[in-house]
């Protein structure tokens, strides 16, 4: 018996010893860890996970934002508008082919846009009046309105996918992809990992690509790591060369360690607290109560507690990275922490000790944030309960202001107007999950900004001030984005994305 036992033990030890030491292999592959790998390769996807680092490598788009937030042509050669942004004529480059050899022409571009309109996964396509082919390589795009950013978003979200290849796929590119991109996805494991390799038969020379999306690495491997501690471990053991969007607590460990380079950038979304607009909620029509809540929140402490100091307060409701943000707002007062004032406002308000509920996601930092907010509000004499729910519950109830009084969310977009359009447009009431309120005064202010000539500092200021004064939403804080890589991969010639964080596949490496 003992013998048997020892044999087993020996076998296990041997098995363990059999493993090779995981040194970082210099194999020319850039291994990147990210919190999400998509569950499908389909080019038609909702806004969720839209800012993941890999989409610009999987598919080419008609246009692309460079880090200066300027739209550069990519598959499109040029475009112009004659009627102040309602109608655009777009011309594609010649000779575009996807990896199956199918040419990408105006037919395909029109098909892709029409398909996107039909699938309605992204609200921006809802703003298209019509799209028509006008030549082999030209098409005309008519918009319902000339809201700033609409055309740009359509250009960046319309991909180089040919109809022929798409229709040949049994599962709409669910598990494999044919695109015009110089990278071909060679090994895709849904929600786990995928590899991209530069292909020989790319339709143009790499040098002809826009610099902000010009690939430099022959092979890139993305791995999904959901567990924070495993992200760090993967970096240390050489499983990956780089971790993007690392949780702050994990990322901080590598700061000051010469073996790792840590890059901190402003978050591009920030966290917001939205107040319910439903009449049943005590906060809906009680500006003083909302302001009291805003005053009760100690943003500095919030940043300390949740980001360990690695974040910045928000001076607008939304992130400073967005186009339209005005740095002068940083000199204004934005409900600084003032408990006395908060208490005074509570006293002046109609609040009668009701328990207010905070709805938030049950994942990530949100429940912790809700607990800190709860503690702050308690100090001002406001009773709060937390409802940290799963995503499905949130999606189902976010429109129903009777189900919550406050809602923590994180809102993205390239333009401030993007965020506003989704959150505060009373005409799009059904999609306004921020406030679920019909505020036509705010609506008019918004519409003012939605024309190319109306998107002015003055008009934007008006919206900013209205939001701040009414306090129907409040910017909590903006955590830094952490990206860390092993110094020995020799990352040089840093290229940044539109969200101002590093775009690793376009940088140059000396030690891969």
């Amino acid at each position, binding site marked *: *018996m*003992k013998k*048997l*036992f020892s044999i*087993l033990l020996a076998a*296990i030890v041997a*098995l*363990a*010893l*059999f*493993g090779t*030491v*995981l*040194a970082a292999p210099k194999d020319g592959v850039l291994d990147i860890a990210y919190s999400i790998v998509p*569950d*499908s390769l*389909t080019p038609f996807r*909702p*806004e*969720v996970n839209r800012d993941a680092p890999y989409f610009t490598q999987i598919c080419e788009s008609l246009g692309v934002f460079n880090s200066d937030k300027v739209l550069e042509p990519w598959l499109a050669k040029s475009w112009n508008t004659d009627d102040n942004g309602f109608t655009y004529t777009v011309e594609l480059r010649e000779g575009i082919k996807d990896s199956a050899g199918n040419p990408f022409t105006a037919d395909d571009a029109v098909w892709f846009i029409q398909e996107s309109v039909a699938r*309605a*996964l*992204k*609200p921006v396509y*809802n703003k298209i009046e019509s799209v028509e082919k006008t030549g082999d390589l030209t098409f005309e795009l008519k918009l319902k309105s000339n809201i700033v950013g609409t055309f740009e978003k359509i250009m960046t979200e319309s991909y180089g996918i040919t109809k022929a290849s798409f229709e040949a796929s*049994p*599962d*709409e590119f*669910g*598990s494999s992809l044919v695109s015009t991109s110089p990278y071909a996805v060679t090994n895709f*494991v*849904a*929600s*786990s*990992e995928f590899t991209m390799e530069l292909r020989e038969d790319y339709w143009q020379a790499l040098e002809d690509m826009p610099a902000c999306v010009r690939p430099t690495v022959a092979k890139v491997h993305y*791995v*999904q*790591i*959901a*567990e924070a*501690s*495993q992200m760090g*471990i*993967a970096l*240390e*053991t050489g*499983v990956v060369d780089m971790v993007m969007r690392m949780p702050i607590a994990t990322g901080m460990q590598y700061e000051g360690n010469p073996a790792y380079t840590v890059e901190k950038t402003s978050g591009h979304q920030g966290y917001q607290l939205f107040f319910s607009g439903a009449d049943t909620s005590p906060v809906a029509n009680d500006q003083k109560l909302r302001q009291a809540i805003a005053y009760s929140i100690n943003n500095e402490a919030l940043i300390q507690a949740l980001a360990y100091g690695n974040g910045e307060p928000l001076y607008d409701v939304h992130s400073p990275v967005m186009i339209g943000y005005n740095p002068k707002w940083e000199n204004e007062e934005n409900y600084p922490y003032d408990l006395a004032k908060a208490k005074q406002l509570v006293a002046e308000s109609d609040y009668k000790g009701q328990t207010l509920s905070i709805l938030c996601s049950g994942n990530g930092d949100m429940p912790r944030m809700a607990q800190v907010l709860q503690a702050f509000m308690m100090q001002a004499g406001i009773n709060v309960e937390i409802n940290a729910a*799963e*995503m*499905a*519950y949130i*999606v*189902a*109830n*976010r429109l129903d202001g009777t189900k919550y009084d406050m809602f923590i969310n994180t809102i993205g977009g390239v333009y401030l107007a993007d965020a506003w359009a*989704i959150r505060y447009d009373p005409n*799009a009431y*059904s*999609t306004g*999950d921020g406030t679920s309120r019909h505020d036509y005064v705010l609506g008019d202010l918004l519409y003012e900004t939605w024309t190319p000539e109306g998107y002015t500092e003055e008009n934007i200021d008006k919206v900013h001030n209205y939001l701040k004064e009414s306090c129907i939403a409040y910017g909590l804080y903006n955590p830094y984005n952490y990206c860390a890589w092993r110094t020995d991969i020799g990352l040089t010639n840093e290229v940044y994305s539109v969200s101002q964080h590093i775009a690793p596949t376009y940088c140059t490496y000396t030690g891969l």
Partner: protein
Amino acid sequence: MIRYVLKRILWMIPIVLGVAILVFTLMTFCPGNPAEIILGSTATEDALLAKTEELGLNDPFLVRLGNYLVDVFIKRDLGASWATNVSIMTSIGERLPRTLTLTLVTLFLAFGLGIPLGIVAATHQNQWQDSLSMVFALIGVAIPNFWLGLMFVLLFSVRLGWLPSMGISDGLKSYILPAATAMMGAFATCARQTRSSMLEVIRSDYITTARSKGVPERDVIVKHALKNGLIPIITMFGSTFGHMLGGMMIIETVFAIPGMGTYIITAVNNRDYPVVQGGTIFLAITFSLCMLIVDLLYAAVDPRIKAQYEGQNKKKIKKEAEA
């Protein structure tokens, strides 16, 4: 024997049908409109209505249930994921083997270590080996899984660099740490089960008979006692197997293994009904097959049970299947 197996396989059909109906019904009661979740928080009302119609969510419950059952049981098609359009069979085909591998490696470790430990404890009852084994086993039950998992990773991957810390790219080697983590509970239960069942067997008369024949003590334990003590362990093996198939989501998350657990849980969160239903049906089939194998293992171990199966005595078989 073959008739028995066929009969059992036929029995699986109503069970799988029941599972399909139950899961379908439960998912219908889940709050949240799948169309909304697929389209995301920025969807327009029209798009939502169209998607809801497309998914057939406007049909009455019984119609939807009927359609689904026809698809699954007559057309034998689990459909495609609402979220990704990928065929569910394809996804399961990729993911089930990973979960199965993980489960099998886990069970191999749990029983490979648990049975010898239980035997050592039983043969040294009330001596230090016994106490030590049982303390070890109790600790195994008590330690939370993922805590232990990360400790293993820190030791074997970060400090020693022996084993991969996550992922599945290193073949079987990738499964060792996750399995070692996942096995603790089963290992402990197995050790304790083996101990108590061996203690019972060791006291039985035929063991004394074996000793009186001059059978060496090792053979008494291995040849005579173990085989008799195996039956409760096999029972445990079956239930642990079933438990693990669907209970690996934590291990799969911690070790970044794209298996069935994470597949189903993501689908529950996304209200991706066909995936939850299809995944669960497959797990139920796997579980039922595994239970059949367990019952056949009984027969292999115990001729009395085999005789019952072969006897085709309906009542007896049923009794056995339920015991």
